[in-house]
Each structure stands twice: as C-alpha cells, then as structure tokens.
C-alpha cells in the first residue's frame, strides 16, 4: 500500500492558505522590487530592474551591506571559537556549576534585544567604544553565542569517541588528536553553528540600532532608518536582494543539515 498523503481536502486547503499567509509578504516584496514605475506598485506593465540598478547609486546601502558581512564574519567566528572549548568542557567533564554555566551562556535568548540594546549603549559609551567595530563584535558575540553553542554542543555530545582513543593509543598528542580527529568529526555541527550565528548577527536589528553609529551602520539598521522616513521601491529591491541571498543559503543549508534540525538544534 502506498499512501502519499493522509490529509483530507479540508486540511490541504488549510495548508494552502497557511503557506499563502507565510509567503505572501515575501512575494509582494519581490514583485514590487521589479516595478517599472517610480512609485510603489505591482509590475503590471512589465518588469524592470531599474530599482536594483538604483541600489548601486545609494552607497549607504552597499556600505551597510558590507559592514553587516564583516560584523557577522567576525562575531560568528569569535562565538564559535568560544563555543568549542565550552562545549567540550560541558560534554566531557562533570564539574560543579556545569548546568549553571550552560544556563548562563544560554541566557541571552531570554533577554529582550531592546534590553540588551540599552545595556550595551550606556556600557559602550562609558568605555568609549561606541560605534567601534570591536564594540559591535563583542555585543554580537554575546547575542549569538547560544545559537553557536547549541549546535556545537550537540555535535560534541553525539560524537563517537573511539576514533579519539585510537589516535591516542597510536601515540598522537592531545593537541594533534584534537586538531586531526576531534575537529573533523564535529565539523558539521561547528559549521552549522557558525552559519546560524552568522545569519543571526546579519539579521539583528533591535539591539544593533542602539549601538550603531553613522560609520558603523548595519544593513537592517540602515533599512529601518529608511523605512521610518519613506517606503519606496528602492527599499523593496534591497529587501528582495536579501531574500534571494537568504534563499540560496537556505537551500544549501537544507541540503547539508536539514533546516528543521538546524533550527531545533538536535
């Protein structure tokens, strides 16, 4: 017996409407981005890429895009570099305060981003780090650490240790074992954690809004500032570019890890 689908027609209609609800706003952004008019409208008289070309005349968006990329690269790398030893400690040792330390590293998930924003704003300005790259990276690291740690920890916990023991018994030093055996084995989890951390940093708006300065504006912050002044086809085309890039990344991630596994972290 081969059953493709156990859902009745009513359930399929529900599913269709649900998907429509989820995708409509994103589809509309992409459609409006291709308008040939000078104002917001659907491209009814023909498609045009004029608003995509227009992005290039607005260096503030291009600069913000690159700043976001540098920021996410730096923060995700630092977060993963901190997460690997922390995950090794949690997965392999029993020590007083283990659960507490883990809860501490996961706590940024429970703190509203606006609260982190106000805390970092006064802290960075008292340190004299406002709007500096290093200041923004430090704040983003705290914010994205839970995402990196969750996936790295899952891969360290799930790792088969017999290969490590074999390497050790064959005379490999601790460091060599870690570098040539452990790291390759946990690499999928580390990569997944890094990518998720990168995306979270790249997308973050609320907290960054408080700590960004005109010279360190990320793309979401730049877009927010633009939208609060005016909503035009330009902002739609910038958004469409983000949607296209995210879609490509998503399909790759789904092929490698499975999107639900990546987001649940198991």
């Amino acid at each position, binding site marked *: 017996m081969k059953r493709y689908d156990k859902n009745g027609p009513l359930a399929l209609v529900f599913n269709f409407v649900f998907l429509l609800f989820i995708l409509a706003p994103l589809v509309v952004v992409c459609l409006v981005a291709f308008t040939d008019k000078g104002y917001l409208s659907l491209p009814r008289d023909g498609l045009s890429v004029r608003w995509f070309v227009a992005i290039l005349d607005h260096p503030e968006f291009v600069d913000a895009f690159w700043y976001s990329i540098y920021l996410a690269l730096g923060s995700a790398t630092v977060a993963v570099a901190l997460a690997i030893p922390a995950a090794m400690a949690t997965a392999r040792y029993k020590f007083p305060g283990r659960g507490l330390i883990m809860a501490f590293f996961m706590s940024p998930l429970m703190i509203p981003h606006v609260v982190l924003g106000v805390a970092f704003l006064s802290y960075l300005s008292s340190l004299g780090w406002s709007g500096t790259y290093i200041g923004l990276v*430090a704040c983003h690291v705290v914010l994205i650490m839970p995402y990196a740690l969750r996936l790295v920890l899952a891969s360290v916990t799930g790792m088969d240790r017999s290969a490590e023991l074999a390497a050790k018994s064959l005379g490999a030093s601790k460091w060599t074992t870690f570098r040539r055996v452990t790291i390759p084995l946990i690499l999928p989890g580390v990569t997944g954690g890094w990518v998720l951390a990168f995306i979270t940093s790249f997308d973050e708006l609320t907290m960054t809004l408080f700590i960004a300065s005109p010279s360190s504006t990320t793309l979401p912050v730049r877009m927010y500032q633009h939208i609060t002044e005016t909503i035009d086809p330009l902002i739609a085309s910038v958004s469409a570019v983000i949607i296209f890039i995210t879609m490509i990344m998503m399909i790759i991630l789904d092929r490698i890890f499975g999107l639900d596994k990546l987001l649940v972290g198991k």
Partner: protein
Amino acid sequence: MNRLLPPYLLNGPALIIFVVMLVVPMVMTFILSFNSFDFYGGIKPDYGWHNYLEVVQDSYFHEIFLRTYGIAIAVTFLCALIGAPEAYILSRMSKTWRSLCLLAILGPLLISVIVRTLGWALLIGNNGVVNEILIGIGIIETPLKMMFTTGSVIVALVHVLVPFMVLSVWTTLQKLDPQVENAALSLGASHFTTLRRVVLPQVMPGVLAGSLIVFALTASAFATPSILGGRRLKVVATTAYDEYLNTLNWPLGASIAVILLIANVVVVMSYNRYVEKKYAAVFD
C-alpha cells in the same frame, strides 16, 4: 594538576566575555534605573525608586504595558490556533511535500524581521497591494486604513512568529507513535475524537513550549510594532527606545527595560514550572 581545572579553563574565555559583556552592562543598567534625570543637568548619580514609581503610577505607561501584553496574548493565541493544526497536517504529508512545506515555513526565520515587516507594509499600506486589488475588483472605493492599527501589528507578528509554533509542535509530533492514533481509530473513535482525546493531549507540551517562545518574543518585539504601529501605537520596547534615543532620559528608559526583562523572566519561569508539573509524565 587539579582534575577540576580543565573544564573551568575550557569555559574560561567564554565566561570572561560573558561577565565583561553581559553581567557588567546589565548590572550598570539596573543601577542606572535608580538614578534621576533632568533636562538641563542630565543624569544625576542619586538613588531612588522614582523611575519605577513613575512607570507604575502614570496612566500613559499603563496603556503601553496593557497594549503590549494584550498584543502578546492575542498573537500567542492566534499562533497556537493556526500553527498547531499546520504542524499536524505537515506530519501527515508525504515526505517530499513535507520537506518543501517545511522549507517554506521555516525559511522566513532566516530572513531579517525588517524584510518581513516591510512585506506587510507593502501589502496593507494605503496604496498597498490589498487595497489595490480590492479597489480593482470594485469591492471598496476608498482605500481601507490598515496601517498603524493594532490589528495590523498583530497579524504581522503572527506571521513573524508562527514558524516557532510550527517548529515546536512539529518536534513533539515526531516523538508520537502513530500506532496510538491508529489504535484509537480501529477501536471505533471518530477522527475528531481521536484528534481531541489522543493527539491533542500528547502535543500540548509542544503547543505550550511554542506559546512561551511566541509570548516572550511578542512582548519584547520592536521592529514590527515600530513600523506598522507608527508613533502613536507604542509598545514597551519602542517606549524604551524613545526614552533612550529621543528624550535621552536614560534612567527612565533603563527602568522600563528592567521591568520588561523581569516580566519576561517571571512569565517564562512560572510557565515552565506549570508545564513541567502538569506534563511531567510526558517529559519523563
């Protein structure tokens, strides 16, 4: 060498960063919330409960907190209402369709909330797509005013957050044994009864966990209420933002942030305790 040293050394770098970049700023914000502020002298280093009293006594802030938590309850309820059935439908789909639908539902989580909110602004704006279509087919003549209403904020937040609900229920459903459902059906229970008395009790922990995430994220949402609610429909997060970056009354903004944080933590903790107590059997 002490046997206990390695785990602390391994945790060390992350612990240092977290103490310097999380504990210190949070404590400083907490202290700042007790300082006072005046428009000429700026922040004064004195201590008192006046900022908290102002928030507790001023009806302006009552309205903001009531609106925020009202929106949070509505969004949570709607997410459970549409997210849980969707997860159930997904679990009964063929594998190919399911992974395609999951990709479409979870994918938007990776797209910045600002893009998703912009989508709603383009849909429901005065010369947005919905009005364009409704006028085009002659149902209405003047555009409906949907931007800057509480309803639009709720709908957009449901859109932004419902993937978390689907994900949460979906994870619970995967642990379910389909044979139990088949047993109920073969013993003569109607489909509806099976859903209500067999499936629903077992996915409730997933629904509750999802509700928790959605509630906490809605209560602290900033971008969506700020863009779709406009300046008049203030919520707690946008109020804290205004106090900090427009009025420059940092102590008052800090006290609003502290209240928001404490409210969130209390809700999450008590909810967790309730769920663990009530569904202890399911988690074991």
